[in-house]
């Protein structure tokens, strides 16, 4: 479970996040929807303690992120904006490195890697070096290493960015599956359809603030629009930066 209260962050003159609060429950998918530059990535980075907030708090399973960043990182698995792999290591070695950094090792770790390779349908590439991987293959390895320690909370920053249709479908299936396993899944996106298709709860962010928060039905009701797409446009104020 992830709770965010009044998060704020400035970079020099630019205020990236003004005031963001929401709650993401276990066993559900929470979508952070907003146009590019709305503050989604910065909010996520504050959640995994790579950016220190200027104000507000974030808690992961009750652990305060700012006061115990290492414990926070043990409880979350993250697919960040940057998905670089080590090109001279094989897919398995890339994933194994992260497993070891989480204190895993031996047969238990190898079994976990095999299970993830199964789940993500990446058995053919698991022994190959990462140089020359396609975007989709790279995303799979990045997901696998994010999930290696079986985290209860999963953060995905624009997970379908740069993926083709097949990989996008696989990613959506994976997100549903992670929820069905009881995890708390948060993903950010600027693609309306994706968010409305996947999310149990939607947090709409624009210009560093939460402008709408609720289930798809609640958002439709509060804006008085029948169509979810029109509802988004009405809460954000424009359709600039959103992709259908």
């Amino acid at each position, binding site marked *: 479970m992830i709770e965010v209260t009044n998060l704020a962050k400035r970079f020099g003159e630019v205020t990236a996040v003004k005031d963001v609060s929401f709650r993401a429950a276990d066993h559900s998918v929470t979508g952070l929807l907003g146009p590019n530059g709305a503050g989604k990535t910065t909010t996520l980075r504050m959640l995994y303690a*790579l950016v220190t907030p200027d104000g507000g708090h974030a808690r992961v399973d009750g652990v305060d992120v700012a006061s115990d960043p290492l*414990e926070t990182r*043990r409880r979350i698995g993250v697919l960040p904006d940057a998905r670089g*792999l*080590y090109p001279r*290591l094989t897919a398995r070695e890339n994933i194994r490195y*992260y497993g070891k*950094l989480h204190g895993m090792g031996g047969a238990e770790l190898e079994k976990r890697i095999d299970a993830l390779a199964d789940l993500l349908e990446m058995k053919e590439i698991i022994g190959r070096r990462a140089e020359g991987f396609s975007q989709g293959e790279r995303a799979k390895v990045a997901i696998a290493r*994010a999930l290696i320690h079986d985290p209860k909370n999963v953060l995905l920053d624009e997970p379908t960015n740069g993926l083709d249709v097949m990989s996008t479908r696989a990613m959506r299936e994976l997100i549903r599956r992670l929820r069905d396993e009881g995890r708390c899944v948060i993903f950010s996106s600027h693609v309306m359809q994706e968010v409305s298709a996947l999310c149990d709860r939607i947090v709409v962010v624009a210009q560093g603030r939460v402008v709408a928060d609720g289930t798809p039905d609640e958002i439709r009701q509060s804006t008085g629009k029948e169509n979810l797409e029109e509802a988004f446009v009405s809460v954000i104020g424009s359709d600039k930066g959103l992709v259908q």
Partner: protein
Amino acid sequence: MRLIGVVLGKELMDHMRDKRSVMTALIFPVLGPVMFAGMFTIMAGWMREDRPLQLSVVGTENAPNLIAFLERAGAQLTPAPTDYEQQVQDGDLDVVLVIPKDYGDDFEAGRSAKLELVVDNSRNQARVPIRRTQRLLDGYGAQVATLRLLARGISPELARPLHVDEVDLATSAKMASNALNMIPLFLLMAALMGGMHLAIDSTAGERERGSLEPLLLNPISRSALVAGKWLATIIATTVTVLLTLLGFKIAIGRVPLEDLGVRADLGIEQMLSILAVVLPLTLMASAAQVLISTFARSFKEAQSYIQVLVMIPVLPSAFLSLSPIKTQLWMMAIPFLGQNLLVTSLMRGEGMDPMGLLLSLVGVLVVTGICLAATVKMLGSERVVFGR
């Protein structure tokens, strides 16, 4: 602590698979000794004194006594070709002795008899034969003068108011050190450059590939991460230094150094002393490289910064090899300069100065600590992690 080992292991494996980086690490162990062997073999060829002196003579018939003296002294005399001036200029002949026609008349009349030595002083290679010829001619002159004075009942010492004895204090090991100064320079360069590629690849390269942000999401402290990368750089550097030293050990065994009047030996004890001085330097060099490449915006930028970094400590050493300054104890505390002075005196066969070693160690450790702390701090900065 275990996590440091995980990072270290990964970086080393990654590095071993990087052909380009292994190549740069191996350039020094190979290049230095090969250059060294080549240079000294050529120099030894020039300087060889045991070869008979080859002397071309014009007008042999004008001075039979002189010719007999030269032959007794072991010189091999040949008649000079007609275009001898051209051949001296071209370097085909080292030295030509010209005996003019009126030599005999002047000699018998007791006037100074003229001889001509045709040489090209700009050629290093000709210097030894020229000097040997002059010495022979001086010897003949002195012998004749002595005989003439004795014939007139005068002590020859009157004509020689000064008697200069040259006392050469340079031990042969000391002379060797001047010639062998390039060995410490190469060793210290190896300590600076051996791990360069690994340092850049594991920091600036990490960010450029987009793998730094996900790496920092693991439950590992920044200091453990920096320590792992730093240790990996140290290991790569140490291997380079060891290979370079081994290369020089092999090269010294194969170069005819005795022909240069130089006795040089890299014994086990001396090699260990050199390592005791040079290896601590790798701690600092690695820390500085990790710091700089963390700061740099890209792989390329890190590379150019580090190339400048390598030049800075080399300058005083290059200066030192040209004009030896008197060593002061405080100099030992200056990283790189201190190591250079210590290794040079070791090469000279003067033994280890424990106070100097201690000071040099302190200097290095202080700079290392500052660099590591700055790197850890930098990795905490959002601007550095996400690029500027």
